[in-house]
Each structure stands twice: as C-alpha cells, then as structure tokens.
C-alpha cells in the first residue's frame, strides 16, 4: 500500500468550536504528526468552499487520507465521505474527530479543551493511517412505509405516500384513527368545524387501496436498518370480530357498564363496549376488559346476546405479527399537561374550572352537553376567564411555548360569545398569533369584545371578599399594563394547558433509537435544515411528537416526511456502509463460537473446509463475532484491531 499522506482540516464551526478551542494551535499540532502533509483550519469546513479545499489538497498535494475535526460524524461523516469519493479517494480513507458535540460543547471552557481536541485529532490521524479502502454496498429499499400514529399528521403522511401507489401501514394504539384533531370542535383561525374537514380524510384513509390501518395496535419491536426494517406489531384483542361486525352499535347501546370517556376528556361516560366517537374509523367497537362485567365478574355478555352478526368474541387474544417496511414515520402526537399539578388554579377542586381539552368537548355538538356551554349546575356562564400558559413558558413545568394556546383561547372567546354572550377575560403573558391569518383572527376576536388582561394568573379561588364575588370563582392576577392587582369574579375558568411529549415518549424513543431534545420531544436531525429526519436513517418524524405545533404545521411536516420516504422509495436502493466482518480462513480454527453469536445468522460453517464463513449480504457489521473469536481470525472492517489500537494509542498520547 502506498505511503499515507494525511490532510487534516480543523473546523471553526463559526464560534461553536473556535470560540473555546484554539483551532490554529490544533492545526499546527496536527502538522507535526507522522504522515500529515497538510493541516488547515477553516471557518465552515462543511461549506462548499470548505469541501473544495479538501478536494484541492487531494488533487494538488496528493493527500490520500483525510481527517476532519468538526462536528459529530452522525451529522457530516457522509458529507465528507462524499468529498473523498468525488476527489477519487475511497470514502473509508477518512476519519472524523468530533470536537464539537463531544468537546467544545461538552466541557467547561478552558485550556484543557484545546488539549483534548489535539488528542482527538492525534487519535484520528493515527487511526486513519491504518485505514484500508472498503467498498460500499447497495441494498434495495423495501417500498412499504410504516406510519406510527393515526392523527392528522400520520394520516397526511400515509395519504401522500399511498397516493403514489406504495403501501402504507398506519399503526394506531387507540380503537380509531383521528387523533386529537377529532376531539376539537372548531379550528382556528377559519372556524371551520374540525370534524367536517377531518372525517372525509379519515374515510379517504380507510378506503385507500394502499393503506392498511392497524388500530388498537402497537409496535413492540423493530430490527433491521433503513430500507429493510422488520416491525413487530402487537394487536390488542378487540373481542369483536372485525370481519363480522357491521357497525350497528347495538352492543354499545345495550351494554350496562360504563367508564369515563377518554375521547370526551373525562367529561362524560362511555360504555365498556364502545367506539370512541360516532365517526370512528374503523366503525367497530372494542371491549374494554378493565370495565367489562364479563371480564371482571364472568357474567353479563349482554353485547353478545344482542349482536345479530355474532361478532362478539370473548376468546379473542392478542395477535403478534411482523411487517416489512423500508421507512418509518413517527407521528405519535402529544399528551396534555395535567392541570391538577398547579393546585392554585383549582382544577379538580372547583367543578367550573375546565381544561382546554374539556372545553373543546363542551363546545362540540358530539360532546357531553351537545355543544351547550354550561356550568356544572347546568346554568349558562355570564363571565368566563381564559387562563393562558398553564404548564407552558414556566420553568416549574415546561419551559417552552405550546404555540397553539393563544389561538385556541381566541377561538374559545368567539365560541363563548356566539353561544352565551358572557363577558370574557383572557389572562395572557404575550399574545402569540404568528400563523397565516392568525393576527387577523386576533384582531377580529378583539373586535368582538374580549377583555385582555396582561398577567400570569396567580390563583383561582372561591373565597369571596365582596358581595358580587359570592358564588363566583375569583381569578387573581396583576394587570401588568395597569400596574394593579385585579380580582376578576367569573362563573367559569378555562385553563389552556400545555402540549407535552407523550407519557411514553422515552419508551418510543428507545424503541426507534430517537433522540429527545431538552423539552422531551423527539429530536430532529437538524433544527432548521432537516426537521423531519432523525439521527436514525429511514426513521422520520412529523407532527407534535417533534414539538407543539398547529394543524397546518403538522400537515406540512407530515407531507415533508412523506416526500422524504418517497424519495428513498423512488431511488429504489440505498448505499449502506461497507462495515461488515470477514473471516480469515487460514486463521479460523473452526470452533463455531461465532456461528451462535451472530444475531442475523449470517455466519455458517463450511463442513468441507471446516471453517466458518460470513454471508456479506446478511452481515450487519455489529462486530460481535470479531470480539469473540478466540483465534483472532475475524476482521471487523473499519473497526480492525490495528485501527482501534491506533486510536487508543492516539487518545492516550
């Protein structure tokens, strides 16, 4: 092999690295290392001119190995490997030193940062001098896509993909698709009814020949890699035969047992056998075993008696099956903040303190009051306080802004005015009406007559100190624009609760190898330039699982994720790293330890030659076999003993 001629490029990353690491000194140090023919520092190495610089050195200085000291290889390893390829070098003659995420960002500023960066660069130089060329492998993309979550984002993504005649599976854990949007009454700022725009979508999804909806189901395991994921799905028993059920819902009518309706945010009861809402898709009920008399006490079976279609099946059990997909779109949505964790707002103590979700249901014609805005005692409210930022923009709960509350608070004002003519007080910190038509909506609602009080509510109490406060809820707030403490007596309080990551976001993140940002939502690959991809190839995110957003933004992100998946499908194949393991047959003792260890059954024993061999197509390159081989006959490409030893010696130098 030719003598290594190494080029080292230390990136400033603006001030992200250069602000705390002396990049010039790191480059100077690199120049002194063996085989290094050139060492440079550059403001943005990933930029076009930065890439050109490397290409130029390869061509003009005969650089044949490259080290870039910049950000995480998870971000730009591919970028720079591409540079090498374009310049005619094998992309594996490259090594990155992650001096941003794992150095300048990770440690307190100080001279030690520069020292550490030098050692990291030294290790990379040492390692890259041992690198050998490897060939990339092209693997086919399985053209089906998995969408996790059947809310508006999931449905949108599914339709976009399915409309190009590629199969989509929607996995939804609830009995129906529709998500949170199905619970809303009207949508801002157009005030069109959510059901009117959502239900046609749901029908379209359910009738689409290229979409298969798997409700009441969850992903339990995933394996494989981009283009070739294997997904294990658990389908919970509905205890209703989907093939037989005709959706007449007589069972629901006859069922004598009840539980709180999740769909109505706990404001009403539903039966133990139920569909969550009248427009549910599929329109097939489920039996909630936790509240069903048969499962609890082994009697009743009323639903079975009344079902003409004989669709009730108490013997049904959960079903586990596997799907093969090339891409995955996560659209698992959000949960809402638990308002009772701010006790001073009285939620749970005063019956006329409602959360925004409860109020949505109160406004809805399909809700518990058939759309009448009434108090717990059935009266119409004469005055309503709408409290913004409950659980949002607050270090004690969630630091972030939930982005939709100002707008739905304005929407509530309109609905209350329309239905009751009550006096309305909005207690806000800042009005954030940033979307298309939103400021105009704010203007319109202002003109309808709303009292805007700038201040974060301190307390909601029923302790009256004046005659006119008796029997009312009194909202205590400073009007920061008047500089005066206000006591606002009202009949009803609506708490605009924060949008939060799903309670099981951590489990889902682990399942799909997703990162989570500080706010707990799933982490996108890049906050500006790549908000739909994740650090896991082939796994995309859309909608509120990535952060609070309104319907238009969720839909836009879902479409973007779908476009990304389609691009992959259209390409048909993807190049995957050539990182596999290989057996040196002359060293192999034929002990077969590796045969059992391989998680992909990629290693087989050649009975004739009495040695083990690795199927290069099946091998995923984990290196478990190489680490276990007692004779050291297995080479883990790109992670060879020589390479890793060189890196170890480098970091300890």
């Amino acid at each position, binding site marked *: 092999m030719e003598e290594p001629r190494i080029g080292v490029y230390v990136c400033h990353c603006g001030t992200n690295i250069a602000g705390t690491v002396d990049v010039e000194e790191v480059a100077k140090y690199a120049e002194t290392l063996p085989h290094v023919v050139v060492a440079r520092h550059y403001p943005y190495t990933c930029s076009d001119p930065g890439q050109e610089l490397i290409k130029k050195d390869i061509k003009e200085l005969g650089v044949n190995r490259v080290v870039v000291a910049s950000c995480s290889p998870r971000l730009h390893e591919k970028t720079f490997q591409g540079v090498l390829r374009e310049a005619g070098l094998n992309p594996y003659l490259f090594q990155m030193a992650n001096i941003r995420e794992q150095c300048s960002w990770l440690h307190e500023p100080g001279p030690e940062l520069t020292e550490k960066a030098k050692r990291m660069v030294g290790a990379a130089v040492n390692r890259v001098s041992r690198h050998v060329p490897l060939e990339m492998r092209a693997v086919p993309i399985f053209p089906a896509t998995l969408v996790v979550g059947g809310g508006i984002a999931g449905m949108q993504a599914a339709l976009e993909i399915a409309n190009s005649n590629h199969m989509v599976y929607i996995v939804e854990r609830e009995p129906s698709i529709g998500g949170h949007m199905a619970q809303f009454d009207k949508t801002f700022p157009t005030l069109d009814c959510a059901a009117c725009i959502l239900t046609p979508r749901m029908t379209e999804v359910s009738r689409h020949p290229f979409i298969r909806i798997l409700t009441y189901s969850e992903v339990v395991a995933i394996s494989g890699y981009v283009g070739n994921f294997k997904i294990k799905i658990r389908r919970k028993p509905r205890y209703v035969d989907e093939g037989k059920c005709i959706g007449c819902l007589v069972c629901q009518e006859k069922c004598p047992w009840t539980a709180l309706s999740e769909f109505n945010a706990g404001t009403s009861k539903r039966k133990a056998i139920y569909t969550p809402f009248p427009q549910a898709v599929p329109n097939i009920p489920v039996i909630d075993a936790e509240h069903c008399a048969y499962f609890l006490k082994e009697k009743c079976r009323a639903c079975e008696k009344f079902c003409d279609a004989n669709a009730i099946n108490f013997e049904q059990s959960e079903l586990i099956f596997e799907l093969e997909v090339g891409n995955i779109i996560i659209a698992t949505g959000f949960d809402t903040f638990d308002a009772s964790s701010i006790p001073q707002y009285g939620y749970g103590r005063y019956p006329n303190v409602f959360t925004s979700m409860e109020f949505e249901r109160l406004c809805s014609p399909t809700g518990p009051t058939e759309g009448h805005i009434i108090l717990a005692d059935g009266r119409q409210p004469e005055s309503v306080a709408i409290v913004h930022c409950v659980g949002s923009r607050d270090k004690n709960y969630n630091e972030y802004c939930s982005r939709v509350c100002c707008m739905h608070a304005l929407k509530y004002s309109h609905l209350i005015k329309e239905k009751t003519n009550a006096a309305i007080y909005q207690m806000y910190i800042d009005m954030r009406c940033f979307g298309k038509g939103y400021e105009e909506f704010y203007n319109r609602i202002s003109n309808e007559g709303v009292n805007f009080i700038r201040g974060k509510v301190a307390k909601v109490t029923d302790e009256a100190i004046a005659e006119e406060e008796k029997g009312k809820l009194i909202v205590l707030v400073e009007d920061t624009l008047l500089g005066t403490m206000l006591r606002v007596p009202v009949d009803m309080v609506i708490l605009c609760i924060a949008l939060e990551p799903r309670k099981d976001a951590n489990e889902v993140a682990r399942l799909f190898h*997703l990162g989570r940002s500080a706010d707990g939502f799933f982490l996108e690959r890049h906050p500006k330039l790549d908000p739909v991809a994740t650090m896991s190839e082939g796994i995309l995110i859309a909608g509120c699982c990535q952060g609070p957003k309104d319907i238009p933004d969720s839909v836009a992100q879902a479409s973007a994720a779908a476009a990304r998946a389609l691009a992959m499908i259209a390409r048909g194949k993807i190049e995957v790293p050539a990182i596999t393991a290989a057996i040196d047959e002359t060293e192999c003792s034929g002990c077969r330890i590796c045969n059992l260890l391989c998680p992909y059954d990629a290693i087989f024993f050649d009975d004739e030659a009495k040695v083990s061999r690795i199927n290069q197509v099946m091998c995923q390159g984990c*290196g478990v076999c190489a680490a276990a081989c007692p004779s050291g006959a297995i080479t883990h490409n790109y992670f060879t003993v020589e390479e*890793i030893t060189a890196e170890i010696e480098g970091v300890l130098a």
Partner: protein
Amino acid sequence: MSFEPKIVGFLCNWCSYAGADLAGISRLKCAPNVHIIRMMCSGGISPLFILKALEAGADGVLICGCSPGDCHYKEGNYKTLRRITLLKKMLEQLGIEQERVQLHWVCASCGDEFVDVVNKITAEVKELGPLQAGVKSRV
C-alpha cells in the same frame, strides 16, 4: 497539580454515541477526562481493546451500550454484559480495581445520564489514583 485520570470510553454508535452527542447539543457539561472511541456495537468491543487501553496508559475504561432490550443488533449488549463481567473478574486477579472498568447503559436520548456516568467514573478513578506501572505490565 492534582491527578487527572485518562479514561478511554468505548461507545456504541446507535445509542451511547448519540447520547454523548445529545449531551453536547444540550450544552450539558462534564469532566473532559473520558476519550471517546466510537464502536458499532458494545458487543463488538473486544476485551483485547480494554486491556490494550489499560496497557497504553489509561487509568480507567468506560464502556457504554444501548439499554437492555434496545440493542440495534438485537442483543449485542447482553453479550457485552457477560463479557465485561468475566473480564472484570480477570482484572481483579491482576490487582485492577473494579471501579476502573465500568459498563453503563446510555440511550440515544440519555444526554444527562451520559454526563452523570462520565463524572462518576472520573471521580472514582481519580479517587483510586493512577494505574501503577507494575500492574500495567502485568496487563
């Protein structure tokens, strides 16, 4: 000058390396003593590498992998667990303290856990002092 231990960290690509990145992205701060080497899977970390690190001057070795059940390669991390348990028994016989070689599970969204783990091993190895040359040679 107080003793600053040198620690080599072997991190799996899918969970732990991503977790370390996340710690940086979140601007969390930890001790600078751990030098990270990226591996594909913790199951691919040969005991030889750990011994090599100790021999070449490391005062400690940190191994991080996906949490049990989350391995990108199905169950590589279970193999790591068994392997490290065995290795530590061997190191004990060589007179190398338990705390010098630590295995932790750090997931891709576990930025804070990564920082905690780094600070923990750094403090504990600092407490133990440098790995003696005599012990090294036995390695």
